């Protein structure tokens, strides 16, 4: 087992990353997660220096293939690739509901023929990125597949927590909101669980998926009880269409019981940090004063997102040369 380097330096100091793709946190061993976090840590200064360039991927081609629009995630991957010197091409694929899958496999074959080095893929269907990875000859990074996983989000969340708390192990993290439909929640529960972080999920029963008690350390339906003494609160976005009486009666009732405001946050530890994967619905799941307040680390998350995506791209592609 190679020793993990702790000294500053280039990415070449790390032992080769053994995974071909990054589809799911569930595929990673704890030491691989820590390896990616350490690599990400090393990427943070690159984006803070005046010439934000570490051209380890010059000559490589990265295609961002987004079947579901996402300006934030796509921009983050694009900037990450470009700072590493890769040629980055963005493809937004408009999908009609009838031909989604057809487009997926066909597009995979077409893109594969253009010989990219890495595909960054987002799709609305769980498992779609895995399916695509079976049809191409290059590395594939999952930028979110349905309600399955969003691994780089979990990595950037963990990096953000580790930088603020100087550790992960032994912390208690509460994830609040629409757990049932959230890939962010699944990836975070898997990652934090692998690193011995205590996890809590907090949501109305309607938004808790079956078997969640096997994925989280504790399950709460009462937000104040769930937030008691936590180190980290992660809020999830509530899709407006779920608060129309079909799953949740109204936004105002949701906000009353599950929106993060100062009164509820007061139950957490005094040094609690508040996170959100974005984009936020202020006044739906979070009080604007909290979102923009002193406990919020939401903009740090965005910055760490670029570092994590640089590290992931570098780890997957630098292995090619080894």
């Amino acid at each position, binding site marked *: 087992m190679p020793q993990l380097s702790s000294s500053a330096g280039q990415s070449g100091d790390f032992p080769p990353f053994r995974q071909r793709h990054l589809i799911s946190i569930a595929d990673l061993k704890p030491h691989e997660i820590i390896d990616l976090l350490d690599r990400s840590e090393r990427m943070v200064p690159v984006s803070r220096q005046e010439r934000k360039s570490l051209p380890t991927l010059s000559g490589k081609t990265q295609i961002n293939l987004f079947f579901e629009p996402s300006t934030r995630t796509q921009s983050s991957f694009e900037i990450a690739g470009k700072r590493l010197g890769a040629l980055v091409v963005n493809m937004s694929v408009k999908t009609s509901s009838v031909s989604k899958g057809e487009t997926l496999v066909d597009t995979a074959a077409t893109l594969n023929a253009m010989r990219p080095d890495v595909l960054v893929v987002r799709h609305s*269907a*769980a498992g779609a990125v895995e399916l695509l990875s079976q049809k191409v000859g290059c590395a594939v990074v999952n930028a979110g597949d349905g309600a399955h996983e969003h691994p780089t989000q979990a990595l950037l969340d963990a990096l953000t927590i580790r930088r603020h708390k100087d550790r992960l192990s032994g912390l208690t993290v509460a994830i609040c909101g629409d757990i049932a439909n959230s890939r962010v929640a*699944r990836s975070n529960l898997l990652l934090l669980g692998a690193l011995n972080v205590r996890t809590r999920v907090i949501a109305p029963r309607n938004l808790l998926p*079956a078997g969640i008690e096997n994925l989280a350390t504790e399950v709460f339906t009462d937000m104040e009880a769930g937030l008691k003494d936590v180190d980290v609160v992660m809020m999830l976005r509530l899709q407006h269409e779920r608060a129309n009486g079909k799953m949740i009666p109204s936004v105002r009732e949701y906000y009353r019981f599950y929106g993060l405001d100062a009164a509820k946050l007061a139950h957490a530890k005094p040094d609690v940090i508040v996170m959100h994967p974005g984009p936020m619905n202020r006044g739906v799941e979070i009080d604007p004063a909290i979102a923009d307040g002193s406990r919020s680390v939401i903009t740090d998350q965005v910055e760490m997102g670029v570092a994590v995506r640089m590290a992931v791209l570098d780890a997957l592609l630098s292995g090619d040369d080894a």
Partner: protein
Amino acid sequence: MTRPLLIENARVVDPASGTDKRGAVLVENGRIADLALGGPVGVPEGAEVIDAGGLVLAPGLVDMRVFTGEPGWEYRETLASAGEAAAAGGVTSFVMMPDTLPVVDDGAVVDFLIRRAKATAKVNVLPAGGITKGLAGKELTEFGLMEEAGAVCLSDGRHSIQSTAMLRTAMSYAANFDMTIVHHLADAGLVGDGVMNEGLFATVLGLKGIPREAETIPLARDLQLAALTGVRYHAAQVSTAGSIDILKAAKSRNARVTAGLSINNLCLNENDIGRYRTYFKLATPLRSEDDRQAVIEGLRSGVIDTIHSDHDPQDSEGKRQPFAEATDGAIGLETLLAAALRLVHSEEVPLLTILKALTSRPADILGLDSGRIARGAPADLILVDLDYPWQVSETELKSRSRNTSFENARLAGKVMRTIVAGETVFLHNE
């Protein structure tokens, strides 16, 4: 008039009579003319003699749930290719579901299918007539005219009638003709966007779940309506422990209700989906191992009456999709018997129990005289090597479609010869 056929030196297994004995069977004019158990056999003059070499001689299987592609989707399966697959699997009769294009909701279509199958298929194809026009759950079809044309039962195939009032009307009218209603159980609202069994495994995969209650609630409703109307009712396929409990109670009061089980729910569970393997995406979803154990117990105790293949050919385009967007269904005619024999080899279910659910019970429910080895019964017979080892390979299957839920499975037990009405329609080549 064809030559008489004598099959001797066989292990005659007839679940209807509970027979499992050395013996011989004489076939004349497509029917079983005589059987001799234990004692010596006289060979009629000019008879063709088959030495079974000790293999099991059993009634051909009667499969109550098969989807074909013909008419409408002949590239998936024709009656001819389904017949080839059936013959290779030892299925000598199958009920064809009405979900075709056009749907089978009219006597003329039933008549067409029977003629077409006689001309092209090697085995007996028994059409089910739709319960409602267009299988849409809104208006009754002509039960009497379809029965006259040859429909063996009534079914809306993979469609489940949502309106309780419509179903009551259909059951009441079916009782009039003493026809069996075979009904697929799915509460549309509870199924919703679900694509697999609800539970931890679906949650981990990020897929929407189908709760067990999507089956048990319509089952409980159907059984009450069956008692109310007096209809002969067959729950097309059940998959949950809860359904076994509900059926057990209902069957103790009403002898006219029966239940079927897909080979998939008998042999597989939700874990077989693995990482989004779409051949395991089925309209009655694979359930948990606890549910599977419960249906096995249901089979042993007689709560489950029949086992069928749920043969459902789907093209690769429909299956090569993200799981939630892929088509439902798996082929199963050729693997039905061998897969069911897994339960025999593991000593979970006795051979006679398994074979009964594959032969005489479905025949009884459909009112057929086949499915048994008895004087005068149709000579629909199979010779089976119970221990023959083989591995399923999708490219070697005779079905036009490849979507087997037993791909690469190692199975023990194979049909060596299939006989329909006295004629050999399949012979295994070493």
